[in-house]
């Protein structure tokens, strides 16, 4: 397996922390893209829906959109960008395993995989 798994950090609702976290993701992603390696962002399902405040929501949905754009660029070079979202209480090992799976699946890109059932009946992000 080659690539990077990037877990979104907790940021609260302070803009400076949101900016720092998104910048960290950008730097990781750019380095991966330059090395032509795949990457996966890991976020909380609740944050895709904005249920834990705007700061964490901006990070989660920002990463999802960034992954979709990166996937378009990577598809021309053979690397992928995906997102794994998980419900609260999910075993982190299970989340990590899905992230590794996404890195290995070279023909899946720009996708969101949700671990758990918390997204069912909710808006499609």
């Amino acid at each position: 397996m080659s690539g990077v798994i990037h877990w979104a950090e907790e940021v609260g609702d302070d803009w400076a922390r949101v900016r720092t976290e998104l910048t960290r993701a950008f730097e990781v992603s750019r380095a991966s893209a330059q090395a032509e390696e795949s990457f996966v962002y890991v976020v909380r399902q609740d944050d895709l829906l904005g249920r834990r405040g705007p700061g964490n929501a901006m990070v989660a949905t920002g990463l999802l959109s960034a992954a979709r754009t990166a996937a378009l660029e990577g598809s021309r070079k053979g690397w992928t960008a995906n997102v794994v979202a998980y419900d609260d209480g999910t075993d982190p090992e299970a989340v990590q395993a899905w992230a590794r799976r996404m890195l290995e699946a070279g023909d899946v890109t720009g996708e969101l995989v949700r671990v758990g059932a918390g997204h069912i009946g909710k808006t499609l992000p």
Partner: protein
Amino acid sequence: MGPITVIGVDIAPELALSEHLTPVQVDLTSPEGPSVVRETVESAGAPLVGVVNNAGITRDARLVNMTDDDFAAVLEVNLGASYRLATELAPLMSDGGAIVNIASRAYLGNFGQFNYSMSKGGVVGMTRALALSLAPGVRVNAVAPGLISSEMSLGIPEEIRARMVDAIPLDRMGTPEEVANTVWWLLTPLSSYITGEVIVVGGGRSLS
């Protein structure tokens, strides 16, 4: 809806030329920017019934070539300024008021726009979170325009723009008025049971 006062906020002085707006010339990315707007709203002495977050810039490049400066500038204007303004003004809003954030269809992904796409995706998340936290008094929605005939899109080389139009089922660029109509609808009671949503104004491009 009765007579309203419209306060226009821009970094450029040209806004002051419009007779229909109370202009505020301010850089919303500056530390004091959002509070200058809040003070203007308070001094207007009227209830705040609507906010439209419309600041946006592009600095396009493929991810591998994107500079730190281009990433930071787009994030700060498109997401940081919108967030800081919305949180500054939200406490002033009247019950029944509405916030409309301008996202972009690029939140679904757009080649060469890692920074822009991330920033507009962030606007979507901000919209959802504020919709939850400001309910039931204030509704918060987003509009995601596609290719619109505007200063931003007219900077795209003509040949590329023509190819982009070819991919739009409605076979043309949208107009600023078509975006404004959607924004207006979301600001008014016509959309009184809608909050936390993203309305794409893109001529069907998300399907083609």
